[in-house]
């Protein structure tokens, strides 16, 4: 029933919105590309492939979406390409990662900002968590911060890179606990950062909830806290940072979704914005995502626009001190 209503709404939206506009009523007429700015096999790539797998269905776009990977420099390579070279004709979509690209645009040296992209819909929200090795002496964030206070700048902990969600979480922790920490960005992304924790090269690490959940299930790590507003349904026993007395919000949560370049015709944006969220709601997509341990969080275009603006503000304030 829900699907049927969604389909009807979509059909109405298509008819009333775009059908009379300038010749885009037949969109899409050919397969669509979606650029992922991380390598094949990474969490973003993996999820992008799942959430787009039903695009070819009649009740979705009716055309398949093919994934193209443009990895490099923490996503900068792909997003630079997307902002400057991708054609704004609706046949080139991109996957975004918040707060990554906003933090990078604030840091500078890249040719994109939130103004260069038009969000379509959000499919997932993967909070950052603090992990330590399974045999570590730390059992709560309290222990971690106490150690950091005794050894200023001596608490080494890994993360996926600079100006990505993990780094933002690290900065928030430093600020909220009032200590100096040694954040070690890893060149091999989240998987490399997790390896460093398990191998004992660093004392702890910030990592994705989905990856940490698996590592904990494998008995390799302990998860001490979630950098989010609420506890996560995958980890109901792990307290948030706020519960442990650190004033940290959800600015580091890794939101993943679909966007198009600025300049894409409005009727196409409207059609995508109406169709794509229903594609994410498909029960096959939902069950695959759940099986893979990937938390979903579907948001419409308007909600995403609001979220982007809010992140821009928070991150500017947070990164101003760097």
């Amino acid at each position, binding site marked *: 029933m829900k699907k049927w209503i969604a389909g009807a709404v979509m059909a109405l939206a298509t008819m009333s919105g775009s059908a009379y506009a300038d010749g885009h009523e037949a969109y899409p007429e050919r397969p669509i590309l979606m650029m992922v700015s991380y390598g*094949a*096999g990474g969490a973003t790539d*993996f999820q992008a492939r799942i959430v787009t797998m039903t695009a070819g269905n009649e009740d979705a776009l009716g055309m398949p979406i093919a994934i193209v990977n443009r990895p490099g420099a923490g996503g900068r390579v792909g997003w630079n390409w997307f902002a400057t070279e991708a054609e704004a004709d609706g046949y080139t979509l991109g996957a975004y990662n918040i707060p990554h690209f906003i933090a990078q645009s604030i840091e500078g040296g890249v040719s994109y900002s939130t103004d260069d992209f038009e969000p379509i819909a959000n499919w997932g929200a993967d909070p950052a968590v603090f992990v330590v090795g399974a045999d570590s002496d730390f059992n709560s964030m309290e222990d971690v911060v106490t150690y950091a206070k005794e050894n200023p700048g001596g608490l080494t902990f890994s993360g996926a890179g600079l100006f990505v969600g993990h780094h933002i979480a690290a900065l928030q922790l430093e600020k909220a606990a009032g200590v100096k920490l*040694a954040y070690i960005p890893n060149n091999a992304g989240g998987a490399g950062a997790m*390896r460093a924790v398990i191998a004992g090269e660093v004392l702890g690490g910030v990592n994705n909830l989905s990856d940490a959940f698996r590592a904990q299930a494998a008995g390799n790590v302990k998860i001490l806290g979630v950098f989010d507003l609420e506890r996560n349904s995958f980890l109901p026993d792990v307290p948030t940072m706020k519960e442990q007395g650190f004033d940290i919000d959800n600015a580091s949560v890794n939101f993943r979704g679909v966007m198009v370049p600025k300049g894409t015709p409005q009727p196409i944006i409207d059609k995508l914005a109406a169709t794509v969220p229903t594609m994410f709601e498909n029960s096959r997509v939902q069950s695959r995502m759940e099986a893979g*341990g990937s938390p979903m969080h579907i948001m419409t275009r308007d909600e995403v626009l609001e979220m982007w603006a809010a992140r821009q503000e928070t991150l500017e304030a947070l990164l101003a001190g760097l």
Partner: protein
Amino acid sequence: MDFLFYLDDVFTPINFGLLLLGTIGGLILGATPGLSPTMAVALLIPFTFQLEPQQGLILLGAAYTSTVAGGAVSAILLKIPGAPANIATTLDGHTMATKGEGAKALQLSFLASAVGGLFGVFLLIFLTPVLAQWALAFGPSHLFWLAILGVTVIGTLDSSSVVKGLLSGCIGLWLATIGFDDIMGAQRFIFHPAVSGGINVIPALIGLFAIPQVITMFTKGRHKAEAEVIEVKRHPIRLAILEVARRKTALAIGTLTGSIIGLIPGVGGQIAGLVAYDQAKKFSKESEKFGTGHSEGVIAAESANNAMVGPSLVPLLTLSIPGSPTAAVLLGGLLIHGIFPGPDLFINYPQVAWTFIDSMLIGQLLMCIFGLYIAGLAASVARVPHAVMAAVVLGLAVFGSYSVQNSMGDVYVMASLGLAMYFLERFGFSAAPLVLGLILGPIAEANFIQGSMIANATVGVGSYFFTGWLNWLLIVIVLASVSYSVWMEIAQRRYTTKDDAVAKEEALP
């Protein structure tokens, strides 16, 4: 012996059919320039959505095994290494093909691949818990020294002199710095949008190896056409098996080096072949024959790059950490069915885990059988006239570079590096050390920066990089490798005089 218990599952009609499909498809994908094993496995993931977990993994496992071996086909026949793993195979393999021994080279490479591959999978079956600890032992300081060890190989690899080898290695190291740096995100030498993502290894590889050869073919023009017909020698499989059995040292060095290096997360596959080739050369009684179409070169390189397949999955299956890009794609293939790899994978999902490993075992044998069949047919490529061949290779080079990430920028990079390499080769420089520099540069740099960040926060740089037995072991091997090269240089006086260079130039086909 659990793996024997689940062996039956591989032979159910559907599973075996998928295994055949994965193997044959993998060989074809692997032989296509630009489609690395990682890409090939990623392309197959959507097909596994419709299959049972067990069946999906059989398809992926078979494809992974055979794409690695399939890369040897284009490396030997066209001198285009399909992936970094096959660079070392071109050195002797392609020379053999130009002498009309393409069939022999392909047979040797598939047989060596099967031996190495089987050994690697058996390591995975029997020693996984032990090996998991080894995979964790390599921290930033060790990886840094390991990369330096790789750099010392550069000087002796396939150049007319150590100095020229080192110089081309340095060019490779410089090329590796182009783009955003991996840790700090700083921009370096970005003079054109095509290189903003850095020099991608695969287009560079295709350009450096294939383009000089294409130009050489075109420069000869049509007037010499009648002299170019190479007699393609038939080579019975029996003789190839005997040859592989006779070259025990090369086979053993290749297999062991591949297995050990394959375990180390993040380094493995790319350099296993080259390191094995270099070691086999140093230990061989006929080291001067390496590079002139010597069977030991092919055997060492190919046994190494397939031996690495099994061990490279150890960190994934036991610790749930993908140790290589291909392992990361396989992780996706597992997660999509709700299977979390980890120490209890073999307890919770024995049917899936063991069938997957068994399929890699049987896949190695099937790969060898089909490979030997292809070898008979494919070797006649050498009979194609040069003008036609040059056009085909050029077409494949452009297609291969473009297909890595659908980008014309990569094609420009491929073409300009290839053109530059054509002139460098005229002066006795060689592509292999250059590529090695390109691969090792980022590994050395990123691990040095990470290591020193950890060191500065804890014990200090000096003690971080110079304490611990593994650091010292690697330092000692580095020193031994350097002294060996220097000693060989002095002993053999491998200087290239101007006359030698002229002679070499004239001798070029």
